[in-house]
């Protein structure tokens, strides 16, 4: 977590929600555009691309804070896991999902490799722990077996 992100982790409450209306200063697109810049005119002029309409890790972490403040810790954790996945490319994302489905991984090590990739290449530490936990449970429940 960068120092910048730590700063935003203090003090956000449900009163700051919705961020787009109450705290537009905190909402910046992946290419550093303000919400107010994401206009039809800008789209027509080619000044903004689909990339600018993606959610950012920072926005997800801010939403995690709000969820936590609203008494929804598990939702907050999902947003934190999601924040880690923003930069994971679609292909890797779908491959990891596929590997987590029953019988796709033929051994525990395949899942552990996927966890390592998430941790080392994308800094997705929470998600990596999560996949490692799955590997343990799948082994105990005999999921590394032939299904089709």
């Amino acid at each position: 977590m960068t120092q910048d992100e730590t700063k935003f982790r203090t003090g956000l409450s449900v009163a700051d929600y919705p961020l787009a209306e109450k705290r537009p200063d905190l909402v910046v697109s992946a290419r550093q555009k303000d919400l107010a810049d994401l206009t039809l005119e800008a789209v027509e002029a080619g000044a903004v691309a689909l990339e600018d309409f993606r959610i950012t890790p920072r926005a997800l972490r801010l939403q995690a804070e709000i969820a936590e403040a609203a008494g929804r810790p598990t939702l907050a954790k999902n947003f934190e896991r999601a924040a880690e996945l923003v930069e994971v490319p679609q292909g890797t994302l779908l491959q990891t999902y596929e590997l987590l489905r029953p019988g796709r991984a033929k051994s525990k090590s395949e899942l552990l490799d996927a966890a390592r990739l998430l941790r080392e290449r994308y800094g997705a530490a929470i998600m990596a722990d999560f996949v490692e936990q799955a590997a343990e449970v799948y082994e105990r429940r005999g999921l590394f077996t032939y299904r089709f």
Partner: protein
Amino acid sequence: MSDPDHQSANRWRRFADWDERPLRLDRFAVEDPKNGFAAFKGAKDPAPSLIIENGCVARMDGVAAADFDMIDVFIAEHHLDLDLAPEAMTMPSAEIARMLVDFNIPRTELTRLAHGLTPAKLAEVVAQLSSIEIAYAFSKMRARKTPGNQGHVTNAKDDPLQLAADAATAVAFGFDEIETTMRVARNAWSNALACAVGAAVGRWGTLFQCASEEAEELQIGMAGFTSYAETVSVYGTEKAFMDGDDTPWSKAFLAAAYASRGIKMRCTSGAASELLMGFHEAKSLLYLEARCLCLQRAMGVQGTQNGGIDGAPLASTMPGGVRELMAENLIAVWLDLECATGNDARHSESEIRVGAKILPILIAGSDLICSGFGSILKYDNSFNPSSFNGEEMEDFLVLQRDFEADGGLTSIGESEALALRRRAVDALSAVLDDLNLSQPTEAMKTSVVTASGSNETASYLPRDVSLISEEIKARGINVLDVIRALARRGYREEAENLLNVVRLRVSGDYLQTSAVIRRGHVLSAVNDPNDYAGPGTGYRLSAERRHELAAIRDVLDREEVLRTEATFARDEERRIRYKAIGHAEPGRPENEIVIGISPAFGLKLYRSLAGHPLSAVLHALVQGISAKGGRPRIVRMRHTADTSFLGLSAAGLAGSGIGIGLQAKGTAVIHQAGRLPHHNLELFSNAPITRLAHYRRLGENAATYARGDMPEPVVVPTGGEAMGARYHAQVALIYAIETSLTAEGAKPEEIEIAFLEAGHDSR
């Protein structure tokens, strides 16, 4: 009775009548807990329990940690708050059940408590509530204050023009979310583009989902066409989960993946899916669903669609099945999840069962009353017919009005609907043309605009759509391309509307629990929390919203009645003339029968409820009287408009002592001097089904009574129509016009009538 077959049949034929009712198409099942047919009490439902050792769950709901299946592990690890659980689990279930229906206990206290409760405990608590208590607790516990609704937009041809038109009308009806799916899987991209454009017509903010294969659905979302997903199914037994080809971890990964793409997501669960899939473990519907719901909260999804989704029809075959569906909705909101409350797959062929099922949730309010109201006709619903469909839309609108309950929908006018459909079809056609995808003809477009369903269109067929869809996918067309095309072709408003939905994902505000978009603002459980704390609190209809619910199509008012009557006035002027010739005095002739007409008869009102001109009614009576040797005389009463008193007053003036009372709406009575007012000789109370021949026979009978004989009373046969529903609004308005012309003690007026057209004979 003379039919030999009937005589020999040893059966009360009422059972044969019942056999023919739509209800009997439903098949019901016996309760059989060992085989999974139990709503609340499964053969192997565990007693609630929780043992924590060294900060870890050692035993939960009767299962030791070493024997946990994947679902147990996930719930123990990610749902249970172990600091809270020891206290929460020791509270008696009966006490918690009372807290759920006690408006003095805040919702937030109960949602916090739920973090420490196991599935078996949650199920045990809600099982103690009656149906009305479940509905009441639901209204208190649901997450967002303002209710909403979700609609299906699909058609049997995957026709994009019709999807656009139907999406636009669904938006106008007020659906917060619309959901499409395909007859042919590869048409997903076309469906997505078409609905996205259609939903941008009129206003912005309707969230949109394209239910398709997991990976493709995510790709369509990433291209910006869709804004939510809900086909992430979970199950309450490990084997069912595996046959669903997932695990709690794979689904939780998917949940995070959707959030990472800025797409709202909820899970799907619901009673009886495990039973359908053959892995119920002899556990009850409710207990298995409690596991699903704890799992969903553990995964960190913001919401669920439950209440029996595909399993609703099966759950409803069991005793208490429908109560169970509400109970599982309650557990969902108690766990602080957004809840799209089923009322989706139609659970019965009986319209009474369908209406009864939705009512508790409708009056309780819900984040999304239906997790798929068929906004299109049944045969166009590619998910399967819903509880409510295009056919029953107005029934739902009237239920909202009856109960002053906000089901999220609003009536639309005919011209508005037509204009929106035209606009949507034109906008989509412009996009298809601009992006060089297709060029629909004017005939195709026109056929769609006015079509109620795809049987009536001459538009794209599934194969045409596949070509369009594969082109969209292959060329990587995304939502910004569509927005630019709309803007280039002059659909700037639609371009702005669509862009506004895409822009939602930048801040992610709509990822929070129970988020919908209303009037351009995100409304969720965070900024619109359900704060119900007794009468006068929680969601209440605003004056404006109440007015919207009341404004259904084609309602009567006094001016409408007078306007309609006025259109008959001119015709009646050509048929009859009434001439008042002074106060009416008692007559002498023994065969004289007085017809006492009501105050507005022929003056402000000209037609009976059955649609007969009043001149014709009067003519039939006069002819009947004359035919049996009576002597008719017409008197207008001005002191009363009541049938009985009209008749009795007429009888008092008649030389024979027999009078006929006749109201303008056609209600008629034969009365006799000296009788009690409401103890008449004969009465036609069902004016809407009374024919001229009946009036003639009534006249004949009056003359027969005058001779001192006893005729066969005239019986107007009824087919059991709900006359009150059909006519009482009109009756009350008409009657008020009559009574407004009465004056206390006003004398009866002698009327001379002349029938003016050939065929009428006043003699």
